[in-house]
């Protein structure tokens, strides 16, 4: 194979508005290793790109010397269906993987808002959607990785058995690292059987207390949803606009055998949500697709927040307050069980930054992270927020694994 050449970066390679000097698309793990070793030697500010769907997340770069794309690390899917595991090259998209796995009635139950999102990017960002209610975030399904280190060494951690405690869990460590510690060559996951049937209950509310009350009843019950989401719509704050009509919703997805789904719908309706609408088939799929995409579907900053799950009413009240600040244009989709959500905030940078600051000053909301925002917003507020107490440990790991400090330099969480 002819070694891959570097090419000059173009406008379509821009990272948060900055065009990289060079771009390389290694076709193998060893080429990736060579590219990294040379980047380390030359101390090139290096950014790893998968599908490019989240490439702008992070602090704005000052310069980008090199973008390493995993687009060509896309030719391997090993599906061990009898073992319910699969090993996947980093450059393969989640949607392509799941298409393959469906042949045996299995899936990697992660949902992404982006069709082009690759496995590498999903692991590196640990980004999760509504399915996390039952299956957790990507790191919870990860059982092994092959990595290229900044000095070019190719190493593995974990393996392809679902139960394994040999050695340090480097795979889970790099989950959420945003390309700051190593580059993912491939990842091995535990898979699950696709449930036979599913249906979703959608209930609308005008009153946050009422919604939170129902949510708490379901959370404390023995109903075991596949997904359990909340949606708070932006309001029309113009004097003539209606402000509170059905402005928030609960979405509860049940999945099992057809008769067990029916039985669970009955028990939920006895408990709460008596007037909810039941959705199934195509309509149900599109509701959830929309739910995953909603925060990204329109303009504005997107901010990730977390809260203790029992504080849902307070969170909605806080959003009402934020809506006052931002002329009504703040909306949220959230995960009831995990206590996590994405806020979309319209308006100018100053308004958006004021909203972020207000969130960070809240006593119960935490882990406030700006995912999408203009460069100006990112100058007004740090995207990652205050460093945690364990940052010192992470930084010393970073210095050890990436001594030249090339990987996502200055942009990532460490």
């Amino acid at each position, binding site marked *: 194979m002819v070694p891959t050449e570097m090419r000059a970066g173009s406008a379509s390679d821009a990272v948060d508005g900055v065009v990289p000097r060079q771009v390389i698309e290694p076709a193998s793990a060893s080429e990736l290793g060579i590219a990294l070793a040379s980047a380390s030697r030359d101390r090139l500010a290096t950014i790893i790109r998968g599908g490019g769907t989240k490439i702008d997340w992070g602090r704005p770069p000052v310069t980008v010397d090199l973008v390493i794309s995993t687009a060509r690390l896309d030719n391997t899917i090993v599906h061990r269906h009898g073992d319910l595991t699969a090993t996947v090259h980093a450059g393969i998209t989640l949607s392509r993987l799941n298409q393959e796995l469906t042949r045996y009635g299995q899936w990697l139950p992660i949902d992404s808002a982006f069709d082009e999102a690759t496995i590498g990017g999903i692991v590196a960002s640990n980004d999760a959607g509504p399915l996390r209610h039952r299956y957790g975030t990507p790191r919870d399904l990860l059982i092994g990785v092959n990595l290229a280190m900044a000095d070019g060494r190719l190493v593995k951690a974990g*393996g392809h058995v679902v139960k394994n405690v040999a050695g340090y869990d480097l795979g889970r460590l790099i989950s959420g690292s945003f390309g700051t510690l190593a580059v993912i060559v491939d990842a091995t996951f535990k898979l699950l059987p696709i449930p036979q049937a599913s249906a979703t209950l959608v209930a609308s509310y005008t009153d946050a207390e009422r919604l939170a009350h129902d949510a708490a009843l379901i959370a404390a019950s023995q109903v075991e949803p596949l997904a359990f989401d909340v949606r708070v719509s932006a309001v029309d704050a113009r004097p003539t606009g209606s402000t509170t009509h059905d402005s928030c919703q609960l979405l509860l997805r049940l999945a099992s055998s057809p008769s067990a789904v029916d*039985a669970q719908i009955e028990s939920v309706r006895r408990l709460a949500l008596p007037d909810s609408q039941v959705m199934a088939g195509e309509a149900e799929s599109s509701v959830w697709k929309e739910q995953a995409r909603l925060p990204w579907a329109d303009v504005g900053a997107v901010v990730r927040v977390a809260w203790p799950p029992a504080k849902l009413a307070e969170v909605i009240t806080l959003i009402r307050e934020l809506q006052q600040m931002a002329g009504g244009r703040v909306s949220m989709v959230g995960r009831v069980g995990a206590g996590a959500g994405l806020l979309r905030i319209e308006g100018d940078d100053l308004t958006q930054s004021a909203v972020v600051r207000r969130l960070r000053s809240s006593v119960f909301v935490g882990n406030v992270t700006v995912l999408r925002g203009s460069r100006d917003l990112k100058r007004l507020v740090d995207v990652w927020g205050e460093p945690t*107490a364990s940052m010192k440990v992470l930084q010393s790991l970073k210095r050890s694994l990436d001594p030249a400090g090339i990987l996502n330099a200055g942009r990532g969480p460490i």
Partner: protein
Amino acid sequence: MDERLVDEFRRICGLDAVLHEPLQLMTYECDALPHLREKPALVVLPGSAADVQKVVRVCAREGVPFVARGHGTGLSGGALPVPGGVVISLSRLNRVLDIDIPNKRVTVEPGVTNLEITRRVAPFGYYYAPDPSSQQVCSIGGNVAENSGGAHCLKYGFTVHHVLAVEAVLPDGEIVEIGSPLADAPGPDLLALIIGSEGTLAVVTKAVVRIMRRPESVQTLLAAFDSIREAGAAVSDIIGAGIVPAAVEMMDRLAIRAAEAAVHPNFPPADTILIVELDGPSAEVRELFATVEDTCTRAGATTIEIAQDDEQRARIWKGRKAAFAAMGRVSPNYYVQDGVVPRTRLPEVLARIRQLDERSGLRIGNVFHAGDGNLHPLICYDERIPGQSALAEEVAREILTYCIEAGGSITGEHGVGADKRDYMPRMFSQDDLDVMQQMRDAIDPRRLCNPGKVLPTPRLCGEVPGPYREHPVEKAGLAERF
């Protein structure tokens, strides 16, 4: 140890909380892997996280190695003391600090036992999911160190899936919060590195764990088979039908006999028994349980017993969970191995183990988590017969070879500890291990925190990998391997 230091530890922990009489130290010489023993210089029993921090600070200042210890139930020598070092026993840090039912979390000190969490939240209808067989006595601190699993981890995952945050004392004595009780803390998952690091990166002084709602329905069956092959086929068919049981356990004839002798669970006298448990919403469990029952019958089950109530279920689990200790009823000594193979390779690996049983002349009982391919062969021997201890170790090693050859792992839940560190190069390349060592050195540059565990003894500079050869420096008597 220097009397000055002993006094300093006494001032920190209290007079009674520093042990250094040889008789007192004996208890701490080993964990539940008794063939590895070392005498520590000192054992301290701090009563608070602040005292743990002070102890670690003194150790860091003086360059004294230290080993954190929970309740000593570990099976890989993870709490094996270091000669001349300090053992930090966390047994006095045993308070449940907070129970938060609405948010489904509990905050505990590391010396709280696994089962205690479930006991405390059971009145509210909740439980703590990871359930190692030693759950009545093992500590949460130890569970965090080992990333403990248990029979139900097939469906519910391991300790790493159930711990949200810890407070830990780093090797330099700094105390930090790692992880977040809230979701989506930005950045690399440092908590997941600490969990399962076998006490080599930090001493955990507090943990926030997730509790779960009791499932609406639990159904358990015990199916008897004439061969492991048939039982294995039943497991494949259950999984192939898209069912994720809460647990799938298998025991062979010798293990059944031992359990029967010890705790009388009333198991049928079969070649192999399979325990399958389903839990979840009633309608789902009812429907799938019928499929499981049918699958077992078609795979050749000779009898199927369904637990009719919690008491019968508890009896079945008692028989299963007592299996290790019960081997003492059928053999003077036994060695518990822990290896993993991809589930589909189970029949082949079990056949090899049975051949090994015949070839070695040592009886090997098999108890295992069949759903996830985690084997626990129990190798019976008699240490009074010359050569048998060594033979047992050799047999245990051989079984790990089978696991590695089948694409598995040298440990599924007991950890590497001191016992298996030298097997690590068989699973990992030198580069893999070097990166792990680098990570360890980044957090514990002076290598004081539980040294000698997890990673193989570092090679001497200039040594070539491969089978053991005496290094020139050793030959010249200038250095020795430790």
